[in-house]
């Protein structure tokens, strides 16, 4: 009697667990795990004659990646993503520091002020940069008026303008995690360091920087990886003339129809992501990663 009642109780107590944790688990397995495994599988298959895939194993897609054309695009994308990340960190850290040292209510308002521009459609914001940097646009007019240049500079559809778009687009994603780690920093620590005779620069390098490192690394992940995979920014500001990994992947599923090659490039991005996450897990707990 008592045995059966414990059994029903046990079964009962599993129901809320299944009802609550069930849907999210099923969703993630169906739409994240399985597609990820499938794309890895596809990257080892043969390209179909009319697009699509023939299920014959081959390493051809990975060999194609080593072709000079693709290899150069990969290198260039990595380089641009790296520059974007470094600039975002250098610009973002002092900015995050400035906000984090304000009283809590002021800081939360400043953060809100940072979010508002991002409710404007991102493509329209990119288009605005394009309008500013047109050959007969305001920036060129200003440069001519100041006598800095003799004739208008071509900015549109150049790597430089794409870089500006990348930086302005990803800077907030660098600022937010760094802000939350600087905010958690105890003033007592800094005071202790100063009291013990450390100069401000020493305190910064030996106390502030190491303690806020998780935030910095989150910022690296949240700028480098999306910058590496973007194609909309390059499309809007590069006018299809500037090609990065993201554009190449997209094209394989559109006009060019080489799925296995697109899959292989995606696997490459997955590997870069996994590597960064692995490095992060060596320094900090993944659960502590600031993503918002």
């Amino acid at each position, binding site marked *: 009697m008592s045995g059966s009642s414990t059994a029903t109780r046990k079964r009962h107590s599993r129901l809320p667990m299944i009802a609550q944790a069930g849907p999210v688990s099923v969703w993630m397995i169906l739409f994240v795990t399985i597609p990820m495994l499938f794309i890895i599988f596809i990257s080892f298959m043969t390209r179909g004659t009319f697009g699509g895939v023939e299920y014959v194993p081959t390493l051809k897609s990975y060999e194609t990646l080593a072709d000079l054309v693709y290899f150069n695009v990969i290198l260039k994308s990595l380089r641009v993503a790296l520059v974007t990340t470094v600039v975002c960190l250098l610009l973002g850290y002092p900015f995050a520091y*400035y906000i984090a040292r304000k009283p809590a209510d002021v800081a939360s308002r400043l953060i809100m002020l940072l979010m508002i521009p991002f409710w404007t459609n991102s493509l329209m914001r990119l288009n605005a940069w394009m309008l500013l940097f047109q050959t007969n646009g305001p920036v060129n007019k200003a440069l001519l008026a100041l006598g800095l240049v003799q004739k208008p500079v071509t900015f549109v559809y150049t790597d430089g303008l794409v870089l500006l778009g990348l930086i302005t687009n990803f800077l907030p994603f660098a600022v937010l995690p760094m802000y939350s780690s600087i905010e958690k920093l105890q003033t007592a620590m800094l005071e202790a360091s100063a009291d013990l005779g450390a100069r401000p620069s020493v305190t910064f390098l030996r106390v502030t920087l190491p303690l806020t490192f998780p935030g910095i690394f989150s910022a690296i992940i949240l700028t480098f990886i999306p910058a590496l995979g973007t194609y909309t920014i390059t499309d809007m500001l590069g006018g299809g003339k500037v090609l990065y990994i993201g554009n190449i992947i997209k094209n394989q599923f559109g006009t060019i129809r080489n799925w296995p090659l697109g899959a292989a490039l995606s696997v490459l991005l*997955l590997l870069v992501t996994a590597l960064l996450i692995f490095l992060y897990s060596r320094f900090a707990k993944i659960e502590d990663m600031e993503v918002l």
Partner: protein
Amino acid sequence: MKQNANRKLKRQRRSRILGGIYAALIYALFYIPVLVMIQFSFNDAKRNYSWEGFTTMWYGKLFSFRNHDLWESLVYSLVIAVVATVISVVIGVLGGIGLKKFEFHGKKFINLMLYVPIVVPEIVLAVSMLIIFMSLGIKLGMGTIVIGHCTFCIPYAVVTIKGRISGDNDTLQEASMDLGANRVQTFWRVTIPSIMPGILSAAFLSFTLSIDDVIMSNMLASARQSTLPVLILSVNRTGITPDINALTTIMVLIMVTGMLLLSFIQRRRAKKEAEEMAETEKRISAMRNG
């Protein structure tokens, strides 16, 4: 000594001013594109390349509803965003509570999977879903776009909700059950209200992520209908018409108003809670003294 302190004060003031100037420059970097975008909604030109003079004509044109493509894509985007938000918030709230409360096999794995859509480039997620849908012969369209959007909104919703569940949540639930409420009553009357601010921010975040998404919406769409951002991406090649700027301007205004309302409600709630707290404490101390 005093001179030293004075110098320190001076230095602090100088660094504060420099900090302010620096922050203003960074904010300018974010606000300039928005202001230019709004400015060009008043541009007296057929397509936006250069400033040709002021007109409010585009707002009038927009509300004559003659631009079917634009309005259709907006409605399409809105329906997708609302459906994706509802699904994401329901699954995210349940999941946030469930993953915090229960221990089960594979929980670590699910937690890891939740990070995948946040960190993996969206294009990778999009094409891997595309391959699955195509291989299974699932027709691309609104359904597939909604699934795509939910897949990156749910993790954010879960993270937001998890952050709102505090330690005293369990105590509250136990108290509710001890007082005779069943699980369902406790869920609706205790758990949900206590994480309401988290639910609202998860909903707002999901909606903004969905309505602004380009990559999923582009890859998982049928050839016939596109969301507003995808329409903008395709129109960009021939030049963007100022009525799109007008529409985007209106959308920003609505979003900002919505957010201000949300924060107003949250602040009033917090104030009310603080007052109730003070009232209870007053009563308790009155009882003790009496």
